[in-house]
């Protein structure tokens, strides 16, 4: 395998795919260049139209410059990352550099605390560094995802290059259901990706919303909001207590392939936790507001919450069906990892097999028809003595 710790040969242009690189570069350009640039420009236009404060306009111009510089670099890195195949050192290096640079990009947008100062002057005290710390967790997971992708695709890459012998398929007869939990069936990239998105959706984004809400409410300097602030603290603790195990379970759900018990089990536990999450974050369907003297508002939306929970509970049915329907396919494929490329290859193989079957069928049909016609023609041809053959 290769010729040293870093195989320079994998940077060779024979691995380079321009169209694939262009696709990734476009995605990066949109994500890191176009969207931020457009947002800052719109912000500037709105600000100019409403005769807004100059310091905000200055800030937006600076952010625009930061977005432009980092956006261009990330687009270029995205191009090279996409151009090289998964599992190659070349893609890994560009991917890793890009994901680290994204962290630097976001940190640079804080403009050494000036964004926070301007927000404090124009609106309220908001701890952007705390929000950045929260962002840092999924950003690190995004860096780890590059390692995951490399680890997942290294063997298929080498197999494809003929540098490694193709692994034999496992015999389904020897496989027991608890074997599903073998680490070799798992995809690190998929696990990290799902763990990251779950952590973001169930913990980090709600925490950011809570931080902003708390900052906004504290700026009101009204005693009545004290109880609401304390409730928000309770909700934050709950988000962490439920969200972190959910993210851990999501890792295993993503890690193991569809059709395995090792995916089914964490999926079901996740659904159960998310049901509890909905119920608890939804305050049990009862919202009591008694901050105003002598007035109490009691909102009971438990039925609506139950409806939402029924909808979420249906995921259990989904995962059960997924286990039942994907298991035969997974078994038949020799218990492979759930990799996108392999899935595509399997689909392609299925398509080809189908086409071959169809062609064979048509050929058989034509042969049959030809034989029939030949037989008919033979029958119609008169014999020399004028008798039927």
């Amino acid at each position, binding site marked *: 395998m290769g010729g040293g710790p870093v195989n320079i040969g994998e940077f060779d242009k024979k691995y380079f795919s321009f169209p694939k690189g262009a696709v990734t570069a476009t995605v990066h350009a949109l994500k890191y260049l176009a969207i931020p640039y457009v947002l800052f420009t719109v912000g500037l236009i709105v600000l100019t139209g409403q005769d807004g404060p100059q310091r905000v306009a200055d800030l937006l111009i600076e952010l625009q410059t930061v977005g432009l510089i980092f956006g261009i670099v990330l687009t270029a890195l995205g191009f090279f990352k996409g151009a090289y195949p998964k599992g190659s050192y070349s893609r890994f290096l560009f991917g890793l550099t890009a994901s680290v640079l994204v962290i630097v990009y976001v940190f640079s947008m804080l403009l050494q605390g000036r964004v926070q100062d301007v927000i404090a002057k124009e609106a309220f005290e908001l701890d952007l560094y705390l929000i950045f710390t929260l962002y840092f967790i999924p950003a690190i997971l995004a860096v780890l995802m590059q390692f995951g992708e490399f680890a997942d695709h290294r063997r298929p890459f080498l197999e494809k290059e003929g540098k490694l012998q193709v692994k034999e398929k496992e015999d389904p007869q020897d496989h027991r259901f608890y074997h599903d939990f073998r680490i070799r069936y798992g995809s690190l990239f998929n696990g990290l990706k799902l763990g990251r998105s779950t952590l973001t959706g169930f913990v980090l984004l709600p925490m950011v919303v809570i931080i902003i809400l708390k900052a906004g409410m504290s700026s009101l300097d009204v005693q009545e909001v004290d109880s609401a602030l304390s409730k928000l603290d309770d909700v934050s603790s709950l988000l962490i207590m439920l969200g972190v195990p959910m993210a851990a379970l999501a890792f295993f759900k993503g890690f193991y392939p569809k059709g395995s018990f090792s995916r089914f089990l964490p999926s079901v536990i996740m659904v159960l936790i998310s049901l509890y999450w909905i119920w608890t974050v939804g305050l049990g369907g009862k919202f009591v507001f008694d901050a105003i003297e*002598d*007035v*109490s*508002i*009691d*909102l*009971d*939306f438990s*039925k*609506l919450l139950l*409806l*939402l929970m*029924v*909808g*979420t509970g*249906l*995921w259990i*049915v*989904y995962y059960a*069906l*997924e286990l039942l*329907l994907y298991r035969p*396919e997974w078994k038949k494929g020799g218990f492979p990892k759930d990799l996108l490329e392999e899935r595509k290859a399997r689909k392609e193989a*299925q398509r080809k097999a*189908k086409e071959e079957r169809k062609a064979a069928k048509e050929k058989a049909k034509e042969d049959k028809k030809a034989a029939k016609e030949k037989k008919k023609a033979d029958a119609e041809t008169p014999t020399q003595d004028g008798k039927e053959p």
Partner: protein
Amino acid sequence: MSLLSFMKLPLVATRLIIIAFKLMVVAIVVLSIVPLLTGGIGLDLDGADNADMTMDDGTIRIDMPITVRNEGFFDINDLQVSFTFMDENGTLLAESEGEQVDIPVGGETEVPIALELDLYDLDRPTRSDLIFNGTDLKFDVKVSAKYTMDLVKLSVEAGSDMSWGPFVNDLQVQEWNAQVTDEGDEQFVSVPFSFRADDAFNGLQAVTVTDYRDGNYTSNVTQTVHMSSQVNEMAKIPISQEAYDRLMSGTANATVRTTLYVFDCSTYDDGNLNMGGGGGGGGGGIGQPVKDLQPQMAGSFLAFDGLNYNVVVPYSYNTSPAYQGQEAHMLIEYWDDYGFNVSIWQTVYLWDNSWQQVWLPLSPEAYDHVTNGNEVVHVRVTAFPWIILAEQTYSEPWGAGP
């Protein structure tokens, strides 16, 4: 379609059902909130300003219809307004539960809000306090309703104080105006009494018992009266010849007490009957509390303090011994022939040989009239609650003022 794809249809279907569920919940939430934010659901409280208080079988009922406008997407069901009354310690006194009303989508619905307080739900001291003295009752109003296909239930509770009554007040026994009559074989002392009742009590019956007591001798008369905003009645109490004689000779130590019964609660007023010692013949008055009431215009003068124009009017009176030290309210009225008039109330204590003076504010025009020429002015002093008055027309000599 391959067999594999066909087999995965249930997965697609389940996913679609989950998405449909989520979309449905989101749509319900959005459709519920939007009308609240855009003013599609609102209240018209004009009816509450025309609240109507009635009394029916011991229950005070206040009707205040409000109009609820529902231009949202869902009916409002089981809208109910309930009231809970408590005393100052928070002890539950009475509850009043309104009817449940449905507010359908697409229009306005009048919701009859009825605040009902059954007086018999209250204990007697509270009820008595409420009827005769008026009181502040704490009350909680609770508005509850179901919305969004009954998936959401909203309940708003607000607490407040509400002043009630008095519904019957100002019971006065006018013992100074009592009359003693001898009708041959029977003798009577007739004592006027009066009280006022709230409009809600108009037409209801009340019972009065007027007791006459002179030492060990007692007599009484019971009457049924219909309540109105101003009730003036006369209690005609039969008395014995001896009692009559003592009363007429001024040796009686007589008191009268009128007790008014409303909804099993009572209040009373009493007074001493004092005969002047004279009388005789067909009967006699029991003397005026304020005597010799007289405006002392000779001592009157104008006063200008650089800011206000005033005329200072003294008046004098004497007081019957039985009333000395009591409080009275004097109404002093002043007017001229140019259409100017002014009046002022003064609270005084009744003593013999009393001399009071009052500062009556004049308009600059009225002040000019009396300053620049000899004009005729009129002054009237009225003593309340007995309505004893004295009036004087005075050709003022004030001339050029100070």
